[in-house]
């Protein structure tokens, strides 16, 4: 009776977002590890050559300059210049080798290896279709595991993450929906899975996400008079 991961992924296709921005993109500019070690190496090389930066710059373009300032500079400058260059060269070579290629950005419907992620299937669904997604998993006999949120202040987004598991096959499925951070509204799935009731209430507590149609979003874990949402990244205690 249990469904295969591929089959389920296909059924999720119409609910998934068409294209998605990878989160967190703050990390994306980083994966250029090669120039990074070279830059500090050059910086250390510059102060080392006792006669200041002049010498290095002259050595860099030897053809253009040599005749004019020839008297003192050229001979000593030429000799220290190749030294730091030779010392620098092997340095960047070492860290470059272990740097693995950045993993491909996840797709809206992503099948994972369970051993790597602890998940079989992860889907980013349209924020208007979370209830349909819950119903889809309900018809396939999945059980609710957890509902939680995630804050991405730089992207002005909040994410709601729904975890599910299957008792017989042990399959783990998660789907997530993104909503605007300044007006966080999403439909409740507690009508489909009553177990989501508390999870959503807790998520409202921590992130201020408004689950439309939820029966009671009063403070749950937090004090009764709480107006703050502690898991937002800009929350300061």
């Amino acid at each position: 009776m249990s469904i295969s991961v591929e089959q389920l992924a296909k059924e999720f296709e119409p609910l998934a977002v068409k294209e998605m921005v990878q989160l967190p993109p703050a990390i994306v500019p980083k994966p250029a590890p090669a120039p990074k070690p070279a830059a500090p190496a050059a910086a250390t090389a510059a102060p080392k050559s006792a006669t200041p930066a002049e010498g290095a710059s002259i050595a860099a373009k030897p053809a253009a300059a040599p005749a004019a300032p020839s008297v003192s500079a050229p001979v000593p400058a030429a000799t220290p210049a190749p030294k730091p260059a030779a010392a620098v060269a092997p340095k960047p070579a070492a860290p470059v080798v272990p740097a693995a290629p950045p993993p491909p950005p996840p797709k809206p419907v992503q099948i994972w290896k369970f051993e790597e992620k602890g998940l079989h299937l992860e889907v980013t669904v349209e924020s208007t279709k979370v209830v349909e997604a819950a119903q889809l998993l309900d018809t396939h006999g999945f059980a609710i595991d957890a509902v939680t949120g995630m804050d991405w202040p730089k992207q002005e987004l909040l994410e709601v993450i729904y975890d599910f598991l299957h008792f017989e096959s042990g399959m783990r499925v998660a789907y997530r929906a993104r909503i605007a951070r300044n007006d966080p509204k999403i439909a409740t799935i507690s009508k489909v899975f009553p177990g989501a009731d508390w999870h959503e209430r807790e998520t409202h507590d921590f992130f201020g996400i408004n689950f439309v149609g939820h029966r009671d979003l009063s403070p749950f874990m937090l004090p009764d008079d709480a107006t703050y949402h502690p898991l937002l990244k800009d929350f300061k205690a």
Partner: protein
Amino acid sequence: MNIPPLTPVGDPANETFTINLGPQHPATHGVLRVKLEMDGEFIKNAQPVPGYIHRMHEKMGENRTWAQFLPNTSRIDYLSAMTYTHAFVGAVEKAAKLEVPIRAEYIRVITSELNRISSHLVGWGAWIMDLGGFTPILYAFDDREKILDMLEEVTGSRLTYCYYRFGGVCDDVDEKFIRSAQEFVPYMRKRLEMYKKLVTGNIIFRKRVEGIGPISAEMCRKYGACGPVLRGSGVKYDVRRAEPYSIYNQFDFEIPVYNECDSMARYLVRMDEIEQSCRIIEQACAKIPEGPIQGKVPRVLKLPVGDTCFATECGRGRFLVRVTSDGGENPYRVRLRTPCFTNLTLFEEASEGMMLADALSLMASLDLVIPDIDR
């Protein structure tokens, strides 16, 4: 003399009243409040109100490094701290792709299973005490003491262990520990026999649990119930088998399942699990290899960008850790999905229409640990 008739406030036949069970009440095993709307002796609606000892562990996770957060995880369910640290350690190891030496895995299994037995013993003793029998908890604590002594010797703590490390365990076990674990197994089996004579067959106990607090398998699915509650409803689900972690797939043990769906079924599941844990300890002690106990771990641990989930089977059920990293030294988000939280969500529906005394039997059968709900 004419006595004036009482002025009826409402319909006396349908009058309800609200009472508070807790937050300070021995039957709630901690600081949990249950708002009860009672129709005479029957519960019309029972609303658990958790949060009295909420500590915001998830926020704490965001402002300290991966290693610094590790001791926090053993404070969530203090009765089965080993399995909780195992889940967090496992999640980090999975994300960072750290190797764990095989001896460390064996040590983890032995200590986890010992911890599970001690956790079930407390649950067992406290449950019977809720129902009015004071003797069993003394026996339970006597046996538990033996386990705590054993674990204290290797971990240095008696309750909130922080023994597992990323990539291994912090200290090796010696021959003495293995021997005492091996000696404990036959001892525990003898005690289980005695427990069965003392409690399981006891007519007063059985009248309080048999047929009380039915929780169907469908209800478990809708609410995400887990652990002995789920297995007492006839669902053969155990994280150690469904999402095998550590080296559990190398051991021969059974998942106890009962189809009665009542409190008695949940009781029997726990008793059988003690026996199954004994079996695992027996096999692990016989097979434990020599070797290193700690794998290679970078001094500054940074996890690759993305989410990783890791679940373990704790004394009370499935504990899921969902860690998110943005590539920094601190976690970006740590989600802790705890078994008592989800098991308590179904209390409102399950207790409807029950007598108050029976509802307490149902609540005791969920084996709640309040810090586990509140986190």
